[in-house]
C-alpha cells in the first residue's frame, strides 16, 4: 500500500489517520458518557484528565490529517454513484471534519472557561483559551460540547451506514479502499 493516495485508493497515511481517529472518537464517547456519572474520587479526576488528553490528541491528529490531505488527491468516486450521492457524501465528510475539530475545541473552551487544568497526559500544560474563569461562557461551552457530540454521533451513524451500504449493497470498493491490512491493493501503484 503506497503512503500517498491514488486515483483508486487511499494511501497508508490517510488510512492510519482514519482508523486511529475513529478508535479515539469511540473511546472518547464511551469515556465522556461514563465519566460524568462517576462519584467524585481521584479516579474521576484521572478519567477526566484522560478524556481531555485524548481530546487534544484527536485535535492534533485531525489538524495533521487535514494538512496531509491538502497535499494529495482523493480517490475517484465509484463511477456508478449518482451526482446527488457524491454531493451528499462530500458534504457529510466535510461536516465530519468540522465536527471532529469542533468537539475538542469546544471541550478545551469549556475546560478553560471552568478554569480547570489541562495537562496533556500529565506532561504538557496547555494554555487557557479564556484566560481564566469565564462564568458566562462556561455553561454555553458545555452545552455546545454536548450538542456537538450528539450531532457527531448521528453523522457517524450515517457515515458507517453509508460505508456498509457501499460494501454490502453496492458491492463497490469504497470501504475496502479505506481498509487496513486486508484491503485489496490499489490498482495503480506509484514507484
Amino acid at each position, binding site marked *: 500500500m503506497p503512503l500517498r493516495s491514488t486515483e483508486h485508493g487511499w494511501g497508508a497515511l490517510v488510512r492510519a489517520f482514519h482508523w486511529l481517529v475513529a478508535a479515539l472518537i469511540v473511546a472518547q464517547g464511551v469515556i465522556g458518557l461514563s465519566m460524568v456519572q462517576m462519584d467524585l474520587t481521584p479516579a474521576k*479526576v484521572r478519567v477526566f484528565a484522560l478524556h481531555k488528553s485524548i481530546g487534544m490528541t484527536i485535535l492534533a491528529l485531525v489538524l495533521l490529517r487535514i494538512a496531509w490531505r491538502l497535499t494529495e488527491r482523493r480517490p475517484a468516486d465509484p463511477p456508478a454513484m449518482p451526482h446527488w450521492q457524491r454531493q451528499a457524501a462530500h458534504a457529510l465528510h466535510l461536516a465530519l471534519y468540522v465536527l471532529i475539530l469542533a468537539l475538542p475545541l469546544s471541550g478545551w473552551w469549556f475546560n478553560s472557561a471552568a478554569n480547570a*487544568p489541562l495537562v496533556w497526559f*500529565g506532561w504538557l500544560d496547555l494554555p487557557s483559551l479564556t484566560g481564566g474563569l469565564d462564568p458566562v461562557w462556561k455553561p454555553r461551552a458545555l452545552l455546545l460540547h454536548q450538542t456537538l457530540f450528539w450531532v457527531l454521533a448521528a453523522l457517524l451513524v450515517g457515515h458507517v451506514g453509508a460505508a456498509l451500504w457501499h460494501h454490502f449493497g453496492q458491492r463497490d470498493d469504497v470501504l475496502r479502499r479505506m481498509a487496513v491490512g486486508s484491503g485489496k491493493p490499489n490498482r495503480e501503484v506509484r514507484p
Partner: protein
Amino acid sequence: MKRSIWLCTALLLGCAAPALAQTWQVDAAHSTLGFTNTYQNVEYTGQFHRFDAKIVYDPNDLAQAKFDVSVDIASLDTRNSERDHTALDADFFDASKFPRAHFATTDFRKAVDGTVVADGELTLRGVAKPVALAVTFTPHGDTATLDVTAQVNRLDFGIGAGQWADPSMIGNGVTVHGHLLLRKADP
C-alpha cells in the same frame, strides 16, 4: 527659621519618644488573603474573601506586636466553582464543622538577615500547628502595607487526607500570602 527649628525638635522628640504599640485597622477592600497550591501539578491560586485581622504593630517595638486573624472558610474562591464546592466538603476544609480558621502570633523576632518573622499558631480544621510568617511592613504616614507569607502543609491539618492525599493530585505545600492595607486606628 524659628518655625523649622521647632519642627525639627518636635520630630526628633517624636522619634526619641518610646514607641507606643500601634493599632491598625484593616482596609478590607484593599486587602487580600490568598494562597498558591497545585492541582494535577498545575499551580492555581485561591483567596478567602472574608477575614478579620487585629493588627498591633510597630517595627520599632516588636515586643508589643500582635496579629490575630480569623478566616471565614466558606469565603474560599479558587475561580473554579466545582473545586470551591468540593473544598468545603468533609474530606477537605469541612467548613460546616470548622467554619473558621484562626491564627494568632506568639512571638516576633528579627532573623539574622534583618527580616521580621512572626511565630504563631494556626488552627485549621480543628488542628493547631505552629506556623511562622515572614513579615514585610511598609509605613506610608497614616497608612501602611503589611505583607505576610507562610508555608503550610495541607496534610498537617488533615485537609484532603485519605484518598486525596496524593500530592501529584493536590500539592501538599501551600504558600499563604496576605496583603493588608492598614490605616491608623483612632487612639
